[in-house]
């Protein structure tokens, strides 16, 4: 009898764990400035375990087949019937015409069991060039992020080069070294928390009390935010609302506000970003309300909240981001994440030393 049970168990296990090779499709447009040199989906597979578990582990080797230098690129990963979409971006590229680079994708998708083998699609969402021109369908609205990454990269490289060129105790090689050490220390101090964002009005946040929150004013910001309020519950904050005023002389079409949360111990951290698509003429004001709630994965007692305008996109597609001078305000410096380029440069300093960093800066 026990032998029969063992056999049944082994058969059930064998059927259940039968992993199929993954069907995949890489689809780049014919006029794409990036071409696929090789692909390796070696460890990718699809397993039926109550649902289709699709593990995508791929390495793509790509070549810049266009005429401009590529600064960043975003690939979209999706499959039929799976929830939403995923993306993998490389924001710190510097690939000249004809040069090659690689992208690694490690994604797990879960979709309902359906007939037939699942097919994973990897498509090009966008490529940003060094002149801030863009190529791609931009299904995920990645162009905005990619332009911001490049503007931050230009700002930070300029800052580090200026520091290197400056004399005195805070300038030159020693000044750059100090700045790198300071950056690495801030990156290490970052008190991040796992967080979930629930969209829609179905959350029970409406029953929670409303609390005001203040905005840190950045004088150079083209948009001023005020009169912020949100509902706060146990390890939960949501339904944020605030007002914005365009104090520049250019129409605005998109802005992002960083949402800062302070716990009972007085620790502040960047909890989420609040993007808003809205048209604001010069000197025009308008309300922003978000149907979403922020849920922390560990218990937290929220003492207060604050925010600041972290980026603004004008009607012509150009963007404003805070300058290094504005970020040097003590509070912002502790809260704002370093740019992807600052992290790349600090990693080069850590791994290869100050001379390698100086050589890297001289490439731009």
């Amino acid at each position: 009898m026990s032998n029969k049970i063992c056999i049944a168990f082994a058969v059930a296990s064998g059927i259940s764990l039968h992993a199929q090779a993954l069907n995949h499709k890489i689809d780049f447009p014919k006029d794409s400035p990036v071409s696929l040199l090789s692909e390796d989906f070696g460890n990718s597979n699809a397993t039926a375990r109550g649902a289709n578990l699709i593990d995508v582990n791929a390495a793509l080797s790509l070549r810049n087949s266009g005429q401009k230098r590529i600064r960043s690129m975003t690939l979209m990963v999706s499959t039929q019937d799976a929830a939403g979409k995923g993306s993998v971006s490389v924001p710190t590229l510097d690939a000249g015409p004809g040069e090659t680079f690689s992208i690694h994708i490690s994604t797990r998708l879960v979709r309902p069991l359906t007939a037939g083998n699942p097919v994973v699609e990897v498509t090009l969402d966008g490529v940003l060039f060094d002149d801030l021109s863009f190529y791609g369908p931009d299904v995920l609205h990645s162009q905005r992020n990619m332009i911001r990454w490049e503007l931050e990269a230009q700002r930070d490289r300029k800052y580090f080069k200026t520091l290197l060129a400056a004399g005195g105790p805070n300038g030159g090689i020693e000044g750059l070294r100090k700045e790198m050490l300071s950056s690495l220390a801030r990156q290490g101090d970052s008190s991040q928390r796992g967080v979930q964002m629930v969209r829609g009005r179905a959350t029970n946040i409406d029953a929670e009390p409303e609390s005001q929150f203040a905005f840190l004013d950045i004088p150079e910001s083209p948009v001023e935010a005020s009169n912020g309020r949100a509902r706060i519950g146990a390890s939960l904050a949501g339904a944020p609302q605030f007002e914005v005023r365009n104090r520049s002389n250019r129409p605005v079409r998109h802005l992002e506000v960083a949402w800062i949360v302070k716990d009972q111990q007085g620790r502040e951290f960047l909890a989420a970003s609040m993007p808003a698509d809205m048209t604001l003429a010069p000197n025009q004001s308008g309300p922003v309300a978000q149907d979403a709630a922020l849920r922390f994965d560990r218990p937290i007692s929220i003492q207060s909240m604050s925010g600041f305008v972290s980026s603004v996109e004008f009607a012509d597609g150009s963007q404003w981001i805070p300058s290094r001078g504005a970020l040097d305000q003590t509070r912002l410096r502790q809260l704002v994440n370093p740019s992807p380029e600052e992290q790349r440069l600090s990693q080069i300093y850590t791994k290869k030393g100050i001379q390698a960093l100086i050589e890297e800066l001289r490439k731009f």
Partner: protein
Amino acid sequence: MSREAMSRHVMETDLALYAAGDLPLWRGVVVKFHVRGCAECRALVEALRLDRQELRRSADDMPAGLSKDFDWDQLAAEMTANIRVGLAAGECVTPRERKITSVSWRPMAIAAGLVVLLAGAWWLNIPRTDTETIGRALRNIATGKRGGTPQEERDPVVGASSAGVVLVENGGQIRIDQGGLEPVMYSVSTQGSASARYVDQDTGQVTITATYVQ
């Protein structure tokens, strides 16, 4: 009627019914005709009629409670009930024999095997998130808690943590973890996206993964 037929007497039960006037019409005519020609049967009918009259007189002499309208069915039911009560009482006072049931190891082994098989099948086939959701729902039922959780989870949820980014929507899920690496930073946005940033330790190249609500 022939002599031979007349000599065949009517059954005594029919004569008793005839005497009481309870025979059906046709049968009653036949018996009457026979009794007229048969002295033996006529004597028996007369005797039965006399007995009947005697019984009626005896009934008239019974106590008032046992009149002719007495409900004999009710009396029979009460007697049956009393007999049953007596039997039940007897069982109560009679010492019982202790039944010793022999426990066989086979059914227990089969049950244990089935439990292991079901647990294994569950572990292999049901995604962990579904198990967690069912566990939460059962806990809520057990504690009688009316949380907003089941309602919330019908809406899309994006999450970012040191394990990467995840989107759960309509029973499907997308999780990006960059091969188990720990992100250097992660965040969510109120428009329904979550992102995580990774830095390659050798080249410094930065990779940003994200999930988006459709």
